[in-house]
């Protein structure tokens, strides 16, 4: 079993390893046809598997070990990036990366959650679970963006805000709440992209935006499928059923009007073609930014307020 592939991707992994084996043969003349046939087969198989993914499979793709993280995008999506550190009060939280970037030549404030790939990186970035100082750093940068009329771009990718002793002591709830409060009327455009996992309040704390986009196979949810399963089904192993119930995929959320745009992923997901994923993300951001820059701040704030107030379904 290839650990870079999820269980439902294993048939693709088998074909890919055959193709790789053929690639290693020196005399390629005789095998070109066979290789092309295998590549076709792999493509067809991938298309077939990816045309009927379950919500649980999509949840797994959103957390795929080879999926691109914030730091895998920054240098390609932006022309330049200067990282800024710290909340000026307690510390610097590496679960949130922030700084000044340029998108197509225009300055923007960038804020993104970072999970980390190697064990060492995962520890450094706390598996993408921010502490209060991370949210407070984000808010500091957002206020700076407002001051200097720079649009804000945020990348969401977190299992949730960190449930630790220190985080609670330093006011995790207040830090999240403060961001929601300030972002709701911040006088500069805000664009958020869920690039992987949008874990509850920990995601929303940098996700109150004029435009919310999601990569096709990312998820955004009030609780993780595992958490929901253990509370409501009394069994964390029922995460697959919980994932279906929670309607946490980009497709469901777009249909309900809870997000604004889905960014398509390359065939087989972002990890199968990172270059293409970066290009698609850059293009989507460029377009949203151009659209948003064409309306006045007053109109933008009015629309943001109306949108936030419209969330919810009830009857009288």
């Amino acid at each position: 079993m290839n650990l870079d592939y999820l269980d439902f991707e294993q048939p693709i992994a088998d074909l890919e390893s055959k193709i790789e084996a053929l690639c290693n043969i020196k005399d390629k003349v005789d095998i070109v046809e066979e290789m092309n046939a295998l590549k076709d087969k792999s493509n067809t198989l991938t298309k077939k598997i990816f045309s009927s993914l379950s919500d649980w499979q999509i949840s797994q793709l959103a957390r795929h070990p080879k999926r691109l993280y914030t730091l895998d995008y920054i240098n390609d999506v932006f022309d330049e990036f200067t990282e800024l550190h710290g909340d000026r009060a307690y510390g610097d939280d590496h679960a949130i990366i922030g700084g000044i970037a340029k998108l197509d030549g225009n300055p923007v404030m960038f804020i993104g959650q970072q999970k980390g790939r190697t064990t060492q990186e995962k520890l450094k970035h706390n598996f993408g679970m921010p502490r209060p100082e991370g949210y407070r750093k984000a808010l500091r940068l957002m206020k700076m963006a407002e001051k200097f009329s720079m649009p804000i771009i945020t990348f969401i990718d977190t299992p949730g805000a960190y449930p630790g002793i220190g985080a609670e002591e330093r006011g995790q709830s207040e830090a999240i709440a403060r961001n929601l409060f300030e972002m709701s009327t911040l006088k500069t455009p805000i664009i958020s992209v869920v690039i992987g996992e949008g874990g509850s309040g920990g995601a929303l704390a940098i996700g109150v935006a004029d435009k919310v986009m999601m990569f096709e196979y990312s998820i955004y949810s009030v609780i993780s499928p595992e958490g929901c399963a253990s509370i409501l089904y009394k069994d964390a192993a029922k995460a697959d059923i919980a994932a279906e119930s929670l309607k946490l995929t980009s497709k469901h959320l777009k249909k309900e009007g809870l997000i604004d745009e889905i960014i398509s992923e390359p065939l087989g997901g972002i990890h199968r073609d990172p270059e293409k994923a970066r290009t698609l993300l850059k293009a989507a951001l460029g377009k949203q930014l151009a659209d948003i820059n064409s309306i006045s701040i007053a109109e933008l704030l009015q629309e943001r307020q109306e949108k936030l107030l419209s969330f919810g379904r009830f009857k009288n």
Partner: protein
Amino acid sequence: MSWLEKILPSITSGSKKNIPEGLWSKCPECEATLYYEELKDLNYVCPKCDYHMRISARLRIESLLDEDAQEEIAPNLVAVDPLKFKDQKKYKDRYAIAQKDTNEKDALVVKKGTINGMSVVVAAFEFKFMGGSMGSVVGEKFVRAAQMSIETNSPLICFSASGGARMQEGLFSLMQMSKTSLILKLLADKKIPFISILTDPTMGGVSASFAMLGDIHIAEPNALIGFAGPRVVEQTVREELPEGFQRSEFLLEKGAIDMIVHRSELRDKIHRVLSALMHKS
């Protein structure tokens, strides 16, 4: 039937009938047996150990507001089950049971009224309604409460008692956090006070939105208040939690709340604070 009842059926069953139900109550904290009428007069605070019992939303509001001129806001809003959510039970069924058990339509009750003649809007959570969880109805009612505050230039007071966002409404629930935070920003821009009263328990999405956005944060003694539940924290950090972790006294020490106020002094304290904050109005 016990052996005593078999031998003396008339005496034992008869004496049982003579005791009206609920005449005696037990403190869940110190287990003292308490006379119900006295407990009621004390607003459900144990006279032996001062434990503040969980009480209903309506009782909270009624004990805060002047008796006359209470007007309920948006009393008939109900959920619509946007996800057709089903776990071991259907959301619809859970909802119907909660309505029946609590006699409420959803987990938040909102009223406009007065405290010693001062106009205020009060929201209170019914914890028994699905753990006081916040779905679309709770979010909308909170917004309507704040809008009423803005319209009538009246301070807003909210008693929180909630496990957090209501999972059964998925991302709609999560979005109530930003929705309620926005309306508090608009209230703050009008310089109208918001007093957040944190009661046992105030956790998750409620704690991480409007409950922590008050001008004044008042907690009842020994209330559990935090973002993540203590069990989740314990499982994550794999160490013993500090004494009194996430309790009111702990939050006061860490600087998250302004004061801890005994239930019997709450009304007076709120009135004093609001009179000062509203002195220009």
